[in-house]
Structures are given as structure tokens and as C-alpha cells.
């Protein structure tokens, strides 16, 4: 059920006045302008703050806007000129259809230009209204509402994946039609590999965007982390047989979205393989006690303390990755960390001098109390 509250006229005027005050504070030199233009020693602005309360703005901060003058302007909504020994002119200030205040100029001496000064002051007041309205609008304008982030991310994915799908498909057709052309298999394979790389980049950007927007979507349930690690190892590919994966015999149950956690593990394994070098090895071990923990240790050169601290920040890459032109955007560890954190786990990175980088993921253990949670999500 939606409840809509309609403001009464007093409340509406008060709200309009509050908005006017906020915006007016940004309008510079109103008082100076009014005083100078009207050749009056004093200029004041009064603005409603409550049903019967007002605030006066003046250059010296002490003067009060004459109550009777304000009441007259408020009641009539019109320019008011009083010239009975002390010269006073006040023009209404309006916002959203309400008289929310008045701009006045004052002189201790009588003057004979009341009508002319009044027109001038009214023109200034209208200008102030307009300026205030514009400032209020620009300050409160929401960003364009295209931003259903899910739609944006989906649209980007669609626009990239569709042409990639065509490239993959037509490349595969080429295999059939150019089977007798020397080297064609190798060329088509290059198309396929590069397409796969682009797909991974798109996936990484989408995951990073989802994490950034706090919109990582997943469904947590009891899953076997050992099985996820096995699948991740198979997915990253290890033609050189450099992954040394040691898994316990029993399942390691965690409460997690298997697809997302596999993405996180794949990033760890791919990074470790990449930085271990062609002859290096990667030790992967999984333990269930005291809490489910996956450790991935590479045999690369490791990282200094400075680099270690910034690793895992989106688009930040280690010096080796930059120097060696290793493909990637610097998103892998940040995605991994984001996914792990979203599950209530932790990612730690250590790199003792002379050793490679060790990444450790811990995830909350699944227990029977999580059954209710599992059913609810």
C-alpha cells in the first residue's frame, strides 16, 4: 500500500521557504545589489521559517525586517511602499507559488522616488526568485534515470557478446570451408582464443561493475568447496600440469553461491599460474578445519609490501604485470575479494621475501542452522 501525504497550505509554504533559504544562500550579493541599485543605505531579506517565525538576512547581521511591512507583503503578495518619515519598500519573494519572504530597502530619510524604486526592487526580487529556483533545481536534480544498473550492465554485455557470438560462429564455419588450406586451423584457433579472451574481459568487467554497484546476484546454498575448486582448476586449464591440487577426502561444506565462488577461485588459480612462470608450480590446498580455507601458493617472484597493500584494488596491477605486459585489467583479485566478502569470508595475501605470493580464502562453514537461511534465499 502506498500512502501519499498532501501538505496543507501552511506546511507547503514553510517547506517552500526552507528550500528557498537553502538555495538563496548560494545567491551572492543580493543585498549589495539591491542597496546599490535603489541607492538605499540598508537592504534586508526576510524569509519564513515557521508558521509565525521568520529570519532576517542583513549585511550587518543585527537589523530586523519590520514585522508590519512583512505581514503586509505576506498578506497581499504585492510590492509595498511606505514613505512616512522613514522610507521602506518591500517586494515579495516567491517560490513554488508561495510568498516565502520579502526583499526590502530602507532609508532613514523620506524620498520622492518610491514608485521607481519599488519597480526596480520588484525586478530584482523576481530575478532573485528565478536565480534561486534554478539553483534549487540544479542542486536537487537527480541523475538521469537511465541508471537501472542491471539494465546498463546487461545492455553492455549484450552489445559485446552478440558480435562475439557471430565471430565465434563464423570462425567455426571457416574451419569446415577452409579445411584444405594450410594453416587455417591455426588461424581459426587464434580467432577463437582471442574471442575467449574478450569474453573473459567482458565477464570481469561485469562482475566488477556488479560489485561496485552492490548488485552481485547469487543464491547461497550448501555447496562442496572441494568440488568448486576442482571445477575451477579444470576451467582455467593447466596444459603444463603445474597445478598441484590437494583436496580432502570429505566434502568441505560452505554456504555459498557455487558459480560466484568458482569465479573467485578461477581468478586466484589463473593469477598464480600466470605469475609462476612457464616452469613454476602452484600449490593448491583446501582444509575444512578450523574453518573452510583455500590456499593458493605460487612460485613467482612475490610482491613487496607496498604492492601487496594495493593489490585487490580494481584496475591496480603489480609492477611485474605491467612490466611484462601480462594481459589483464587488474580486476581479478578485486573481483575475488568482492565475491568472498559478499559471502562473509576473507581473502588474505602474503608474500614472504624470496617466496611467491600466497592467497588464502576463508568462507563461512555451512551448518544445520543455515538450513533456514538456505530456504529463505
Amino acid at each position, binding site marked *: 500500500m502506498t500512502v501519499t501525504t498532501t501538505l496543507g497550505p501552511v506546511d507547503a509554504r514553510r517547506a517552500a521557504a526552507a528550500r528557498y533559504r537553502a538555495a538563496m544562500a548560494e545567491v551572492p550579493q543580493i543585498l549589495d545589489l539591491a542597496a546599490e541599485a535603489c541607492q538605499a543605505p540598508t537592504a534586508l531579506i526576510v524569509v519564513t521559517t515557521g508558521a509565525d517565525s521568520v529570519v532576517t538576512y542583513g549585511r550587518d547581521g543585527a537589523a530586523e525586517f519590520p514585522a508590519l511591512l512583512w505581514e503586509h507583503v505576506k498578506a497581499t503578495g504585492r510590492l509595498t511602499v511606505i514613505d512616512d518619515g522613514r522610507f521602506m519598500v518591500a517586494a515579495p519573494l516567491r517560490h513554488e507559488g508561495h510568498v516565502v519572504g520579502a526583499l526590502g530597502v530602507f532609508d532613514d530619510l523620506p524620498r520622492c522616488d518610491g514608485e521607481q524604486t519599488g519597480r526596480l526592487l520588484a525586478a530584482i526580487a523576481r530575478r532573485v526568485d528565478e536565480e534561486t529556483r534554478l539553483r534549487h533545481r540544479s542542486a536537487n536534480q537527480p541523475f538521469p534515470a537511465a541508471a537501472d544498473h542491471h539494465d546498463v550492465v*546487461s545492455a553492455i*554485455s549484450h552489445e*559485446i*557478446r*552478440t558480435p*562475439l557470438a557471430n565471430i565465434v*560462429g563464423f570462425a567455426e*564455419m571457416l574451419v569446415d570451408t577452409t579445411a584444405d588450406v594450410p594453416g587455417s586451423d591455426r588461424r581459426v584457433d587464434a580467432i577463437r582464443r582471442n574471442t575467449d579472451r574478450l569474453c573473459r574481459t567482458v565477464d570481469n568487467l561485469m562482475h566488477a561493475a556488479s560489485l561496485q554497484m552492490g548488485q552481485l*546476484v547469487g543464491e547461497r546454498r550448501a555447496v562442496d568447496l572441494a568440488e568448486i575448486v576442482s571445477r575451477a582448476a579444470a576451467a582455467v586449464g593447466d596444459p603444463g600440469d603445474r597445478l598441484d591440487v590437494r583436496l580432502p577426502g570429505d566434502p568441505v561444506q560452505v554456504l555459498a553461491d557455487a558459480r560466484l565462488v568458482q569465479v573467485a577461485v578461477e581468478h586466484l588459480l589463473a593469477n598464480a599460474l600466470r605469475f609462476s612462470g612457464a616452469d613454476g608450480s602452484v600449490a593448491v590446498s583446501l582444509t575444512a578445519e578450523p574453518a573452510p580455507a583455500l590456499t593458493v601458493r605460487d612460485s613467482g617472484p612475490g610482491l613487496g609490501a607496498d604492492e601487496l597493500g594495493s593489490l585487490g584494488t580494481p584496475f591496480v596491477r603489480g609492477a611485474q604485470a605491467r612490466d611484462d605486459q601480462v594481459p589483464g585489467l587488474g580486476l581479478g583479485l578485486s573481483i575475488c575479494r568482492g565475491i568472498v566478502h559478499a559471502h562473509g569470508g576473507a581473502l588474505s595475501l602474503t608474500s614472504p621475501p624470496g617466496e611467491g605470493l600466497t592467497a588464502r580464502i576463508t568462507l563461512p562453514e555451512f551448518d544445520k542452522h543455515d538450513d533456514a537461511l538456505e530456504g529463505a534465499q
Partner: protein
Amino acid sequence: MSREIVLIVEDDADMRELLTHLVGNAGYECVGAPDGRTAARMIVTAEPIAMILDVEMPDMDGLDLCRLVRDDPANRDTTIVMFSANVHPDAIAAGLAAGADRYLLKPLSPRHVIAELREAISERAPSVV
């Protein structure tokens, strides 16, 4: 005996051509439609054994078309394979909930698409690839 018909509903002309070629080579007769509304009209006359649907299309998207097909008992045995670039889990769930037998993610090797199509036709069991 006439060949079994597969209706390919895809707004991307290149992809439609590609799928038509591959599905045709796989032994099916192919008809193509660039949007859901055109496809909805073609179903009546073509009586396809299966459909490969893009999801995001102008003039009736793949989800609406899928629901339309599933709401008609005459299409009870029609296999529906969605082939979409929208990889968001919500989109996959929506596709399967709409009645698709498969939700395949672009890009996917055409050989796999054909393999999935054949398998879906034979079993019509929902799964995600």
C-alpha cells in the same frame, strides 16, 4: 517425408544466417524470423519441432514469445532453446521460468548449440549451459 522444422528467432541478421546455416547442416529445415511478433505468426503455419530464440528483440522479446508458445497447448511438444547474450542469473532464471528447455549463453560454439538443440529436442529437460 518432410524434414523437421526449426524456427530461428533472432534480430541480429548475421547470427540468424549463421544459425540457419548450421541448423540446416544438422539436418533440419530452417525458417527465420527477426522478431517475436513475426515468429508468433510463423509458428501457426510452420509447426516447428523446435525454436531457437534470442531474448532481447524488438517487437515482442524472447521471453514473451516463449510464454505465448507455452500457453498454447498445440505447442506442447515444441522445444525452445534460448540463445542469449544476457548472462545475468536473473535473466537465465526468467528464461527457464518462461518455459525454455535450454538457456544458452552467447557466445557459444555453434557445434555446442546444435548439440544442445538435439539433446533438448530429445529430452526437453531444463538446464543451463
